[in-house]
């Protein structure tokens, strides 16, 4: 049976009336009456009561002519003498010729009857049309009803046969569709997971062994055919759930360095989540093994790693397995009959993994990758594994691998780097000065190194900028200035050591702005000091000296000496001058003291 289509024969209305249907299904049609038969039937209905006399007269007139014609024919045959010969030549022998002529006579008589009847009809129509009635052919009612029933039964039988064909096609199509759906689901699962047939079952593998993992848990699951020909997954009890490993940094006072985003998703059961559960278990087991080797106490769900004085990393395993998920689904209102107790229980939700958790997973996956066999072969036609040359060269043919650092050490390095990163970011965001302001650009190299370029800019139109670079590693943050100064700070000392250096750099930038403004007006720089920040300027004509200082509050103190006399220094009250900031006011002072010839 072709499931794509079923041939159904369409029957038109029968041309002839069905007289009867044989047991083998063949039909016997009633032949329609010929024209003469129909005409005779019609004629039999005509009443010829008043015109019988005319008809008898007509017949009496016609019959003698027919008999005289026969007699003339016989006499002519006898009289001629050669008539016998003629008779013999005309037809067969006497007995046969009589029947022959009788047949001719009967057919002529039949034709005569028809013609006579037609003539009577015409006379009746012409002379007395009111007396002529034509009645329709009366069929036998009982026979007609039987024929109708036979026709209906016949049509029922045909439709029933077509219905059976359609039903068979529908059933096979349904089965095929279910099979296609099942195969499609199996194909979709096979695209993402490793499946293999074991006896009559299909088993799959959730483990990361193909990625190089050596965790002893096989992570196997089964596929079973459901009633509707689809596939359902059977997971082992310890993998029925969801889990994640969360790494948080806390100070000694319990404060978390990074804000934890609130989890909003309820745990769901799926193959991906089961694989993540297996990965989380392997990850936590690896961390615990290394903690035990390092002498750090490890709990069943959490491990505390000391990073620095006052800072520790907390590695926790969050797991929701088995009946707990069903309980949570019910408490979240997913069941049809929620109870009051279930509504009161708060659904335990897994926290969203943060940057440190993702970094830890990447470390584990990288370790799996390193456990892989050698890549290649190169070229592709070469045999797999080490080449003969390498094998024959001995153990020294391979490059010496780097000493493998444990997962715990790398995690500690990443955590320290994250804490340093956070401290430097807080330092830059809490810049206390309005002038100059800071602009910084981050550049992240890896999970344990980052750089930030800091620029001091002025709120004006000039392009004068001073730069500094802060390099953040896993142990310390180093500040480099353009004047060659280098300051390193460890965890907890970033603000104490780097901020004064940045402030000094800001002072230097301010003085640089003053130098730039004075130089553009022709002033000369006589002396410059960075600590305390001060600059001595001389006017172009040499008649005026200007001393610009920055006090402990980062405010400009400007003193003027006219006439070149070093003793009489007069302080300029910048508060009374117009300008948005001190540098603008200083620009006004320089402009006022500059002689006109140099302006």
């Amino acid at each position: 049976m072709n499931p794509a289509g079923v041939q159904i024969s369409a029957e038109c209305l029968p041309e002839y009336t069905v007289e009867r249907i044989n047991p083998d299904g063949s039909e016997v049609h009633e032949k329609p009456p010929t024209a003469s038969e129909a005409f005779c039937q019609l004629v039999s209905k005509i009443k010829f009561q008043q015109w019988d006399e005319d008809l008898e007269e007509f017949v009496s007139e016609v019959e003698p002519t027919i008999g005289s014609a026969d007699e003339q024919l016989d006499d002519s045959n006898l009289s001629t003498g050669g008539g016998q010969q003629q008779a013999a030549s005309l037809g067969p022998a006497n007995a046969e010729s009589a029947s022959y002529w009788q047949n001719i006579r009967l057919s002529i008589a039949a034709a005569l009857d028809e013609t006579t009847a037609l003539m009577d009809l015409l006379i009746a129509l012409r002379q007395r049309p009111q007396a002529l009635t034509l009645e329709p052919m009366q069929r036998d009612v009982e026979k007609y009803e039987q024929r109708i029933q036979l026709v209906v039964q016949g049509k029922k039988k045909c439709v029933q046969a077509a219905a059976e064909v359609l039903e068979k096609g529908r059933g096979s199509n349904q089965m095929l569709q279910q099979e296609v759906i099942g195969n499609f689901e199996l194909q979709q699962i096979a695209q993402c997971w490793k499946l293999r047939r074991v006896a009559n079952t299909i088993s799959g593998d959730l483990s990361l062994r193909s990625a190089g993992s050596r965790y002893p848990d096989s992570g196997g699951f089964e596929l079973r055919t459901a009633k509707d020909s689809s596939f359902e997954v059977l997971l082992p009890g310890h993998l029925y759930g969801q889990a994640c490993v969360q790494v948080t940094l806390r100070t000694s006072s319990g404060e978390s360095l990074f804000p934890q985003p609130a989890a909003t998703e309820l745990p769901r059961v799926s193959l991906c989540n089961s694989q993540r559960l297996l990965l989380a278990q392997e990850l936590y087991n690896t961390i615990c093994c290394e903690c035990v080797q390092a002498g750090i106490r490890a709990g069943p769900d959490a491990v505390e790693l000391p990073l620095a004085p006052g800072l520790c990393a907390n590695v926790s395993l969050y797991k929701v397995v088995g009946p707990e998920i069903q309980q949570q689904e019910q408490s979240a209102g997913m069941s049809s009959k929620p109870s009051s107790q279930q509504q009161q229980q708060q659904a335990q939700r897994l926290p969203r993994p943060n940057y440190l958790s993702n970094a830890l997973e990447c470390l584990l996956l990288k370790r799996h990758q390193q456990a892989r066999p050698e890549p290649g072969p190169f070229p592709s036609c070469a045999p797999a594994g080490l080449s003969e040359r390498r094998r024959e060269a001995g153990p020294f043919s391979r490059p010496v691998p780097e000493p493998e650092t444990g997962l715990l050490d790398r995690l500690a390095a990443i955590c320290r780097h994250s804490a340093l990163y956070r401290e430097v970011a807080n330092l830059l965001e809490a810049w206390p000065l309005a002038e100059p302001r800071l602009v910084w650009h981050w550049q992240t190299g890896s999970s344990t190194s980052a750089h930030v370029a800091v620029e001091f800019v002025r709120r004006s139109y000039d392009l004068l900028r001073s730069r500094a670079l802060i390099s953040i590693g896993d142990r310390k943050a180093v500040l480099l200035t353009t004047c060659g100064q280098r300051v390193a700070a460890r965890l907890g000392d970033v603000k104490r050591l780097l901020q004064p250096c940045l402030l000094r750099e800001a002072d230097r930038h301010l003085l640089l702005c003053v130098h730039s403004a004075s130089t553009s007006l022709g002033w000369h720089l006589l002396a410059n000091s960075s600590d305390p920040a001060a600059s001595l300027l001389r006017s172009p004509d040499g008649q005026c000296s200007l001393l610009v200082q920055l006090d402990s509050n980062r405010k400009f103190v400007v003193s003027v000496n006219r006439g070149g006399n070093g003793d009489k220094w007069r302080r300029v009250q910048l508060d009374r001058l117009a300008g948005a900031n001190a540098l603008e006011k200083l620009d006004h002072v320089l402009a006022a003291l500059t002689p006109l010839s140099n302006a």
Partner: protein
Amino acid sequence: QQQRVPNTEVYLQGSVLKPFTEFLLTRLRGICDSPGDEFRDQESVFTCAVPGLSGTRLRLRWSLLHPHLPAYLRYLGIPESADHRVMSRAAYEVPVFPLDAARQLVESMGFQHEFDFIAEGTVFRRGLLKITVYRVYRPGAHASLAPESSLVEVSGLGPSSLTAGMVESVLSVRDQLKSLVLLAKHDQKAPKA
């Protein structure tokens, strides 16, 4: 020791259309031991110019991505149909280094250079088997000879004593890839003009 020399190659070939290549690579990453390594090799084919041995060919293949690795000089025999399910042929491979010296050696043996081609794709390993999905280019051409499809080859090279096991492994891989690519025996004769 002769029994341990790999001298028999068992292989099956097929092709996969471009839209389905990623599905095939995903499936191979799951069933193979290695996650797949990209390769780009160039192969020079030399034909023997000595009368009587004109059908003999030697192939010199080297990696364009790893030029520091040795090249391989290969001899591939006529495909045999000892097993009706897979194709097998005699195959001998020798690592040679450096490349120029190998080329000179082959030419001094009386072989003439016939043609070059570049194979680029991904190679997977599954035990003794190698599964390659690649395209063939002419040197210097940007488009492959068949732009809409890639060639898939499952091959195993080993001594004759391991041929039966390799055949079973090849057939197992063929069955696992059946829904994506049809690996079968192909007639190696050149099409009639």
